């Protein structure tokens, strides 16, 4: 019994690999969160405003009544006499500044919590526009809160955060694989063809593949299903770990290039790198050079 407890203890709280790079992980998550909001800044009112492309009446119909959303914050600001437009601008400004404060290592934990709360309010207020990437960013910001805790229990909390991230990635890929394996068109290759056609206009290359070498779509989609289903096994096996990581990173790069899901692809690569810490990437000169700056 003691041996089992000891193993559990070591697994969850004894993972201190690359703890000296913790700040780089915080910077990666926060910088990406900041870039994400900056990349949609010119359309903030179109996306998040209660009179945006999808108004708040429709949005509220799609989410739970008690779900925390932007109008809860802007409503409070309006009560003290601010116009709605200014209230929304203030919330976005707080969100952006909080990222900057995290990057500057100024009351990191406090601002990591603020960022998480506002991000979730933004996602809930734009349900119709929020796709996988937004939810993955939410989860990365949640992990960021744990990484930002600076106490004498640093090592324990770091280990817990990394293990939580690892297990969550296993859940993500496993259920993604289970869902696909229950259908039909992931086996025939049609799924990949439909996704490419839906997200990008059919071009010469995709039309050529679909007409002359359709089995290429089938190979890709079958490999996605098999890999996702077995990700938890492959990633925790010492022999297959590096191949699995390489496969997942390449797959996300292909998703970025072919379907143009930039945000989703990049956030998944960041999460995988932080969780399973491939030497190939973490020992790049850039990360070594910045270690002492971050610490």
């Amino acid at each position, binding site marked *: 019994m003691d041996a089992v407890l000891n193993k559990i203890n070591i697994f969850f709280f004894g993972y201190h690999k690359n703890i000296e790079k913790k700040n780089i992980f915080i910077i990666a998550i926060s910088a990406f969160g900041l870039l994400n909001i900056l990349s949609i800044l010119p359309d903030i009112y179109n996306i998040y405003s209660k009179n945006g492309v*999808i108004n708040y009446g429709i949005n509220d119909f799609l989410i739970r009544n008690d779900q925390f959303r932007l109008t809860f914050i802007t409503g409070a600001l309006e009560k003290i006499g601010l116009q709605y437009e200014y209230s929304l601008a203030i919330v976005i400004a707080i969100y952006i500044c909080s990222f900057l404060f995290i990057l500057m290592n100024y009351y990191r934990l406090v601002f990591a919590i603020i960022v998480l709360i506002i991000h979730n309010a933004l996602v809930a207020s734009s349900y119709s526009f929020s796709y996988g990437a937004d939810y993955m960013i939410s989860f990365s910001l949640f992990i960021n809160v744990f990484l930002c805790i600076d106490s004498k229990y640093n090592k324990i*909390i770091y280990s817990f955060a990394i293990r939580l991230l690892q297990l969550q990635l296993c859940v993500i890929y496993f259920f*993604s694989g289970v869902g696909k394996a229950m259908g039909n068109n*992931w*086996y025939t290759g049609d799924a990949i063809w439909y996704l490419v056609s839906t997200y990008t206009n*059919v071009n010469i290359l995709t039309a050529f593949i679909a007409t002359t070498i359709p089995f290429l779509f089938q190979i890709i989609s079958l490999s996605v299903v098999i890999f996702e289903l077995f990700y938890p096994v492959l990633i925790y096996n010492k022999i297959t770990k590096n191949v699995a990581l390489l496969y997942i990173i390449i797959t996300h790069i292909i998703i970025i290039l072919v379907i143009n899901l930039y945000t989703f692809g990049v956030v998944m690569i960041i999460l995988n790198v932080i969780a399973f810490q491939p030497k190939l990437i973490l020992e790049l000169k850039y990360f070594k050079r910045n270690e002492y700056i971050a610490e």
Partner: protein
Amino acid sequence: MKTLKIFLISVLLFHVFSSFIINIQIIKTWKTSTYSSLNTYGKKIIDYLEYFNTPEFIQTSMRNYAYYTGIERGYEYYSPNASNKQTKIVFRNNNISVDLPGKTFESKFKINSVFTILGGQLENEGFRNRVIQSMSVRLFTLNPNINHMDVSIVKKEFPSLDEIQKGKPIRIEESTVYNINKN
């Protein structure tokens, strides 16, 4: 130290357990939505999951936790089957397209993903009308010179890889549903 470890282990177990339950609940909804499009094993899994029930109060606490951790929507992307249909709402003024806003690549992508995210819900006429009304109001605000717009529903249906080999083309169907004036 021991208390902290127990607390963290509890959080971790609750997190993983919540994530599992949420994903299972989402898969269970396929019983009523996409059951016929599942393969034999898929149907068996759904039938077994019938017996898997979680008390309402546990579900509620999990949902609240899941909301703040970004795990509430599950991970069954493009499952069980990727859709071969695409529905878009198109706005035109004097036959010139009035595009939905989006000044950057990401915001354009995000705004246009409304058609993927709402997907099937846009088949419901009442809901679709609310969406068209909301979009029209925004477009009139952003384009003050426009006083009139024609709204069309464009439906694309992609043939399967097998059907492509037999020469079946992509089917595009467009129908004008509304002529909207500013006031």
